[in-house]
């Protein structure tokens, strides 16, 4: 079950600050909804655990996330695969790009994701809404993080 999502957020910080925060594990951990754990494996690779609920299916996702196509401070591609155990899996990536705008930074994202197993079987009608909500939450948290 594939889904795509695009969006943009205006952030009240310079492009360099945003870029730094986007590469900071502590910030990411604080901003990723349901994130319980995040460990750097190398500069561009980390392991994360997040608990999320999609419709009737609640799952703890464990997975590796890699950052690629790094183009500081203009953007990168973040991709990963999370194994939700009995609930199934989620994988995908987002191309994130940063541009200067109105004294701050405009972040645009382009997500492509896939879910499988019970998540797809029971949660497919809800996945788009759930993903949108998660993205909104992430960027709300992220906006707060770059501000302060």
């Amino acid at each position: 079950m594939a889904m795509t999502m695009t969006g943009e957020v205006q952030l009240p910080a310079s492009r360099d600050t945003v870029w730094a925060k986007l590469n900071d594990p502590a910030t990411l951990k604080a901003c990723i909804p349901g994130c319980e754990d995040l460990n750097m494996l190398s500069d561009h690779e980390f392991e994360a655990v997040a608990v999320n609920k999609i419709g009737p299916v609640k799952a703890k996702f464990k997975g590796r996330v890699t950052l690629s196509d790094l183009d500081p401070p203009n953007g990168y591609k973040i991709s990963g695969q999370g194994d939700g155990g009995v609930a199934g899996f989620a994988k995908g990536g987002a191309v994130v790009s940063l541009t200067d705008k109105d004294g701050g930074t405009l972040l645009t994202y382009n997500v492509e994701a896939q879910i499988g197993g019970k998540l797809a079987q029971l949660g497919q009608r809800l996945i788009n809404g759930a993903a949108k909500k998660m993205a909104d939450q992430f960027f709300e948290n992220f906006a707060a993080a770059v501000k302060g």
Partner: protein
Amino acid sequence: MSATGIGAAVRRKEDQRFITGKGHYTDDVSRPGQTFAYFVRSPHAHAKLHSIDVKAAAAMPGILAVLTGQDLAGDKIGNLICGWMIHSKDGSPMKMAPHPALAATKVCYVGDPVAVVIAETLAQAKDAAEKIAVDYEVLSAVTDPAKAKSAAQIHDVAPKNTIYEWHLGDSKATDAALAAAKHITRIDLTNNRLVPNAMEPRAALAEYDSGTDSLTLWNTSQNPHVARLVISAFVGMAPEHKLRVIAPDVGGGFGSKIFIYPEEVVCLWAARRVGRPVKWTSDRSEAFLADAHGRDHVTHAEMAFDGDGKITALKVKTIANLGGYMSTFSSSVPTYLYATLLSGQYAIPNIYCEVDAVYTNTVPVDAYRGAGRPEATFVVERLVEVGARELGLDPAELRKRNFIKSFPHQTPVIMAYDAGDYLASLKKAMELADVKGFGRRKRDAARHGKLRGLGYSTYIEACGIAPSQAVGSLGAGVGLWESAEVRVNPTGSVEVLTGCHQHGQGHETTFAQLVSERLGISIDQVSIVHGDTDKVQFGMGTYGSRSGAVGMSAIVKALDKVEAKAKKIAAHVMEAAEGDIEFRDGKFTVAGTDKSMAFGEVALAAYVGHKFPTQEIEPGLKEGAFYDPTNFTFPAGCHICEIEIDQETGETEVVSWTAVDDFGTLINPMIVEGQVHGGIAQGVGQAMIEQTVYDKDGQLLSGSYMDYAMPRAHNFPAFKVDTTETKCPSNPLGIKGCGEAGAIAAPAAVMNAITDALGTEKIEMPATSMAVWRALQTMNRNQVAAE
């Protein structure tokens, strides 16, 4: 006709326990010390299985075992099998891939079980399952049968994912007839994949007795003896006499509970390993992935007509999706249960059918109510209807012109129809449906902004499955006779042990009616025993509308023997010649005298043995019989569906349904009607709402009742159901069978009605309101473009 004999609408004996909550289904059974199994299933449709790490799970509280496909192979547990050999055109045998009960090296569909957790409680099993880490290497998947041949190969044994390329009929003659035709009607059809959804989810409870080294399995099966045979002979779990299979009350089957599944095999194996009873009960979302699906054909078909509207040839090419593995009877469904019925009710001189069966990364597909015959009827009845429209003929008239009118009739596709009167059922249905008044109803509907359509389906099926010799010559691995044992007790009550299995059909009543009629005793004096391999002699179970035609014929044979022996005993006791004994209405009389003995008195005499020479006649009154039919039976009939479509919204409603079926002799018309109702509902469900959706990666998106539309009460009008009768000449009671008719007839009737209302043939099953609305929009656009 007696109040409880053949032909009486006797209220069902089994109902008492069901309406009071005292039914006894598999999940209602609990054994001391029982543990619970939870299966870990693949979330990927196609992947290599590199490793499974069970350590963390095994250390969780309450866990008795975590087992994988490696363990299964280590214990030399054999694979599941498909029991019907089909050969391709080139003579090569079908490509049956290994099907382990737990996948060991690769997974082939979402839901393929890879591990099982056995725990003290189900909650503990589920918690531990979360800790199992499976390392998959995901491969590309295919779900569409039409694309299977060019997709990534799923099994080593099956290049191009092709299981067989089979054919039936005379290709040259058919092509020649097509070339000479006055008119050819061509259609492309999809027969949509269905999820059977018996309301009782499958379950299995296995127990090992180390004292006797024997296993007992309670499971939701339509054929416990066949389950025992396969699990013993092929899976190698235990010798047949050390394995008892009990299928207690079963909450609906519709085919899906015929097959031998991984879960029951694993429960048996696990029960022996952990030394405790192991229970598994499917939940509904699991059932969507774990129960064999039905149908899933893609077909191109052509029908040739001469200048008089006579059908001269039929050519069919079908691709059948068998899913990720070959289920127990999967190979026979799109071949000998399908192509052999392509003559329908018509005298068609030339028929040729090709069927390619393919693997895809989907749940295995096998028999579902009707199995092959609904697919055949759909092809034939859509073609005839479209043909009539193209030829400008009334569809009833075109059917009449082509009906087979003399019997026996040998079709070009194996079947020899023995009896029928297709005109009679069509005529009766047309009257009951008031076809004459349809024009008026259509105009009325138009005034309310509605399109009204009428569709026929004059179907035929081959039931009474099946003559062993015939099916043996076609590749079946088993004979399909049936057995019965009639035990008369000293007090004159009777137990009938049957190899059939009831899961809604009401055998406890209809079989008792037969005994009541024959022995002249009340049905309360009769009990029907079934579903336990320790009690009942070997039998083949219930499917393919066989229990009446085959199962009851076996009982008749056994009753004949009982009567013969009882006459002998009565003759001795009454000191008369055996030839002078008459048996009627439960009484043995000596012709020309007033001497008589009631059935019960003879029964007692049989067991007491004081009054007849036991060295000549053995004491006791108990007889068994095996009955093997000499032909299939051929129920047939006519269903007429009327439909109304809201032009604005596409909302489509079945406004009237008429069914006139010829099932031969009816034992209990009330039960027969109920079977027809249920079949129609499943057929209408298929035609209008039931849709199994896979995404391109093989994820099942319609995997719960939130997404898979199940027919509900408001989807239907009251049905008008009636019968005509031509006796079946091949069995003693003249029964043809009624269990599948509705599901076979209905889809074509619905689609013929919808396309009649719409005025376009461009719509596929399920014709949901959305699909109908889309068809209306396309037509409007085309109209605007044309103007």
